[in-house]
Each structure stands twice: as structure tokens, then as C-alpha cells.
């Protein structure tokens, strides 16, 4: 509901106010905006400018770095590390699709079928956030251990043969393979998919389902023609909230992956901290940002939904 900043309390007796202090609040919205704007300027805009500048500098730690408008860094970085870029986008896309496949039914259940269990299930969805991102990812190393139950089960069901054939796993292990990294990403970002999906599903008027039933739509048709289109805003924002951080993630690849699963986040980290090649690291960050911005723009245009929340 919208509220006005200085609306009188609704139950106040209707006596005429002597002097309506309306004008005073004219600048209130701007004052309210100020903290957020300042925050963004200091912690987003300025660092961004700094990074942009770093990406066109040359030099070394000893000599210092100077802006020389050396744009070739971008091309060099891209031609050197395009496999990691492609890999990151593929892994992120894979994780997003998995999140959608796992998250949609769950969000649907919470919104329409959970009844009094709704709050409990919501808490279970959010509960993993109560522990550290790192600890949760490390736990996966135990779950997927070579001698663990999961790998043995997958092996005896010959699922590993299939994933080996697809190149997702190698030998009879899951850890240190692309599959482990994508699973880790999926797990870590699943709540970001479920929450927006739930919000938009929950908003759908139940009477629309009844109406669809009255018009002889089968449940599947109702879903296809009514529920799913109405939940599109949730699908779009859920996929964005999953895909964007997943593409830049480096923790999952670091802990669950191997040398051939390194993502662009790992490259940026290595360039920045180990090799101390600040320009290349900054250029890579900008390329990643541009790539994601471009993909998201196209995606939002194509998705044909107006609202995003």
C-alpha cells in the first residue's frame, strides 16, 4: 500500500486543521534518497571509476601504475581468457536452469498447496543462509566424497557412466568435475530463485484457477495458460538473481572444482592477488560486467514481461 509522508491519521476527528504544514515536506523525498545515493556513490560509482581507470593503466608495482589509455589490455585479456568466460556463462546458465526446474515446483507448492506448513517450508528454504556460504560449500565436499554414499549410488545406477560420456564427470568421482561445480552453484543460489517465484505465484488470485476450471481447462492447460504466464515476473527476476551472481562466483569452482573448471571469477582473483596484474584484472571485471549487462538486456527484452518484481 502506498502511504503519504504526512497524511493525517485516518481516525482523527474531522476538525479543520488550523494551518496545514504541507509545503515543509517538499524536499522530504530527496532527503530520504540522500543516504542511499551517497552509499551508492561512495561504494559503487567511485570504485567503478577507479576500476575503469585501472583497466587502462600500465606499469608495475615498483614503478607505479599510470593511465596510458592502453586499451589493448581488454583485447589481450579476452583472447587469453575467453574459455573461462564461456565456461562461466555455461555453468551459470546450467545452474539457473537447474534452479528453475527445482525451484518452480517448490515455490508452487508453497504458494498453493502448503497450507499451514507454508511458513515452515519458507523457513527451511531460507535456513541455509543462517550458516556461512563457505561452510555450506565445504559440506558438499563431504557429501560428494569419492567413498561417500552419493557417489556410490550414482555409480551403481550407472548415472556416472552417462555423465562421464557427457563430459560432466571424470572417472568414478563427482568432486573436482564440472558437475560438482554446477551442483554447488545450484545449491547456493536456489533460494534466490525460489523467493521471487513464490512472491509472484502467491499473488495470483485463486479464483482465476477456478475460472479456468469452469471453462473446462485441464489442470495442465490452466498451468500453461494462466499460472505460468502470470508468474513470469518471478521467473525473470529469479533467473536474473541466480544467473548474475553465479556467473561471477569463484568459491564453488575453487572448492569443488579442478584445473579445468576454473571460472572467470577465479581468473580475476588470481590476476589481482597473485600475479598483481591490476589492469588485466580490472579489464576482465569490466568485460564480465558488459557481457552480463548485454545478456540481461536481451533477456529482459525477449521475456516480454513488464514488471520485474
Amino acid at each position, binding site marked *: 500500500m502506498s502511504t503519504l509522508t504526512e497524511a493525517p491519521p485516518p481516525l482523527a476527528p474531522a476538525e479543520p486543521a488550523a494551518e496545514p504544514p504541507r509545503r515543509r515536506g517538499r524536499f522530504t523525498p530527496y532527503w530520504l534518497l540522500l543516504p542511499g545515493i551517497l552509499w551508492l556513490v561512495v561504494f559503487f560509482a567511485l570504485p567503478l571509476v577507479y576500476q575503469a581507470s585501472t583497466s587502462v593503466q600500465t606499469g608495475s608495482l615498483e614503478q607505479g601504475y599510470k593511465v596510458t589509455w592502453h586499451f589493448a589490455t581488454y583485447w589481450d585479456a579476452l583472447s587469453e581468457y575467453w574459455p573461462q568466460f564461456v565456461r562461466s556463462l555455461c555453468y551459470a546458465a546450467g545452474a539457473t536452469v537447474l534452479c528453475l526446474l527445482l525451484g518452480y515446483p517448490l515455490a508452487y507448492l508453497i504458494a498453493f498447496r502448503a497450507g499451514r506448513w507454508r511458513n515452515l517450508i519458507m523457513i527451511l528454504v531460507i535456513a541455509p543462509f543462517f550458516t556461512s556460504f563457505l561452510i555450506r560449500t565445504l559440506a558438499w565436499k563431504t557429501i560428494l566424497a569419492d567413498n561417500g554414499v552419493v557417489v556410490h549410488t550414482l555409480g551403481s545406477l550407472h548415472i556416472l557412466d552417462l555423465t562421464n560420456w557427457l563430459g560432466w564427470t571424470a572417472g568414478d568421482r563427482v*568432486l573436482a568435475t564440472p558437475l560438482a561445480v554446477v551442483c554447488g552453484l545450484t545449491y547456493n543460489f536456489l533460494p534466490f530463485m525460489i523467493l521471487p517465484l513464490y512472491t509472484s505465484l502467491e499473488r495470483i488470485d485463486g479464483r482465476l484457477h477456478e475460472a479456468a476450471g469452469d471453462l473446462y481447462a485441464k489442470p495442465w492447460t490452466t498451468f500453461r495458460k494462466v499460472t505460468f504466464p502470470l508468474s513470469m515476473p518471478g521467473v525473470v527476476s529469479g533467473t536474473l538473481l541466480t544467473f548474475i551472481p553465479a556467473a561471477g562466483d569463484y568459491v564453488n569452482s575453487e572448492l569443488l572444482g*579442478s584445473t579445468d573448471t576454473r571460472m572467470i571469477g577465479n581468473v580475476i582473483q588470481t590476476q589481482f592477488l597473485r600475479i598483481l596484474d*591490476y589492469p588485466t584484472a580490472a579489464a576482465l571485471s569490466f568485460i564480465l560486467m558488459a557481457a552480463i549487462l548485454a545478456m540481461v538486456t536481451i533477456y529482459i527484452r525477449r521475456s516480454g*514481461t513488464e514488471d520485474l518484481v
Partner: protein
Amino acid sequence: MESYEPDRLTPVETAALRRSHRDGRAALTRRSLLRASAGGALAIGGLGTLSACGIPAANKTQGGVSADDHSATEKVVNFSNWPEYIDVDDKGKRHPTLDAFGKRTGIRVKYTEDINDNDEFFGKIQPELAAGQDTGRDLIVLTDWLAARMIRLGYVQKLDPANLPHAFANLSDQFRAPDWDPGRAYSYPWQGISTVIAFNKKALDGVEVKSVSDLLDNPKLKGRVGFLTEMRDSIGMTLLDLGKDPAKVTADDYDAAIARLQKGVDKGQIRRFTGNDYTSDLAKGDLAACVAWGGDIVQLQADNPDIGYVIPDSGYMTSTDNLLIPNKARHKTNAERLIDYYYEPEPAAELAAYINYVSPVAGVAPYLAKIDKSAASNPLILPDKAMQARSHAFRALTQKEETAYQQKFSKLTGA
């Protein structure tokens, strides 16, 4: 939605209120987001202020930059160290050796465990040091190569030998003259680190591992071999295996070692390059054998009898974590007294008994034996003369070499 429209609003405000009721939820729409992102891109593209930025050159003052030494008036020393790298009492709250130091000298040690990774820590303090500011730390602990870089960049202060009588007398021969700090003018070792090969007997299942070649070539270990992300340890062990001396490494030697490891990566022999997290993989048996650090092995063995280690015939790598006083530290003398204190055999023995790395203090053995007999006879904690003779150190690299070598090593590890 019930609209509440107080009649005292101006027409403009009423319109705004109505509008907010109609599409307040659509504050973030596809179009507005597209508009915003296009605007953001324009703003970034149009910035002409970029050239104003830059990163200043490292200061090249030899001997470092001192601040006024407040040691006499402020009886504290700010000591930054790695986690679990000091003795802890039974309750896990106090550090007995630090307490004893405080009691004797009246200097309170503010002990912080805020170094988790050499590269990360360098990234954290580098801007302050480059700008000539106090980092708020009087004593830090860094591994050889980073200590070498700090000295090269002029980020640390020369130590005053007058405050370090025990350190000078008791420093073990093995660590006396690294090529990056001859005569230990800037640094003293906190602990030494032996890099050897560790294995899990259960996971090996009878396979014999004696050298890096076994790790890289035995098909039975495919996908169950680990190396370290610490470039000098992984490459150093490989160089030794190839019969080259890491103390005199040339570009060709280095490339040969990289090629050797690359083959291991390509055929899937090497599972991962890891930091400290190899310990859990090894304990679980996901790694059957790996290049590992001595102190970790001692601790792993205490919990898991299957863990063993081997020192290859070709030798093993040794490095140190070094105590350094950064530029502008406020309590230099206090820091030096703390360094000297840890070179007295008794506190050194207490420390060695607790953290299981190589003690850099000569003559610590009888004191350590009093606390823990098995520790005193463990070559991973107190290497004997024969073992010391097989230890090798990586030579100091120039800035240019360091960048080039690190670049190649990163490529090997996937990024």
C-alpha cells in the same frame, strides 16, 4: 484497493497519489531497468576523469620508513599472525608464551589472527604501505617470497641488532642466510616449513609412493594426486625430482617443471591444486597422496594413523614464515623485544610443542624433550643434520621473473 485521498492535498499531489495507487508496484519495470542500464553505460563511457587516477610507485627508501618509536611510552605491540599458529592454553583463550612475555616486560601483546593468505594479506596492506601510512601493525608474519617482495619494495624496517641478542645467537644455521635477506637484516623466522609428500595408506591400497615421479606417473593414482597452489613448493618439488636445483632455477628449468606438471594435469593425474584444504581431502582419502606441509602432517597423524609421509631421495623444499616490522610501525622496539623473546629456548620449545612446525631456534631440543618427547624426536619438527642436508630453498626472484613465473603457474592451475 481502497484509495484514501485526504481532501487537503493539492491537485498535483492528488495526481501523484492516484498514480502511485495505479502503478506503484511497477516502480521497477523492464523499460525502466533498460533505461537505467543504458544510462549507466553512457555514464561510464563518458567519464573523462579516468586519467586522474593512478597507483603510486612503491617507495624505494632503503631500510624502510620509521615512525617515531612510541615503545617507551606505549607498552604494547600489535602482532598479526596466521590462525592456529601460536600456543593456546587448555581453555583456548590465552596464549601462555605471550602472557609470560607480558609479565616479564610489562608489554601487552595485542595478538590478532588476521593473516589467512599471503596474497590476500598483501592486497590488504599494500595500499597503506604504498601511501606511506601506518598499517596499525608492529609485527607481521609472512612467507619467504612475500617477505622478499616487502623488502624489495621498501615496505619493512631494518631491525636493530642491539635488541636481538638471543635471535642472533640462537637462529638455526639452516635459516641464517636466505638470498633475499642475507644476514637477516630485516626478518627473523617465526617457524620453518618442510614441504614433503604425504599419503593416506588406506587410499593408496599398497601402491608405493616415494617421489614426485610416482605421483605424476603411477596410473593407479589417477585423479587422486594433489599439488599445492604455493608455486614455489609445487614447482620446487618437481624441479628436485627432475634433478634441478631450485636455488639456481633458470627460465628453462622452470619451463621444464611446468611442462612436467602440465602433463599430469592433461592426463587427469592431478586432481587439484590446493591451499591448506588438502588436509581434509587427504584424511577422507579423496587424495591418496599429495605434496604437503610438515606441520599439517604432524597434526593429521595425531587424528588418523593412516596418514604417512615420505621425503623423496631427491630432497625436499624448506621455507619459512618470517617476522617483519612494517614501515611506520609505532612500537618497533617492543616488536624487536618480542622477536628476541621467541628465540629464547624455553618459549621456543613451548611454541614448537604446540604448533608442530620446524623450530628455527637452535638448542631447543632438550627443552622440547621436557615437554613432549615424541615431538623432540620428530624430524618434521626438529630436522636432524642428515635431513637438513637434503633441504632446499627456492631462490629469490626479481619482480619480472616473479610475474612471469606466477603467470605460467596460474595457467597450469587453470586460471
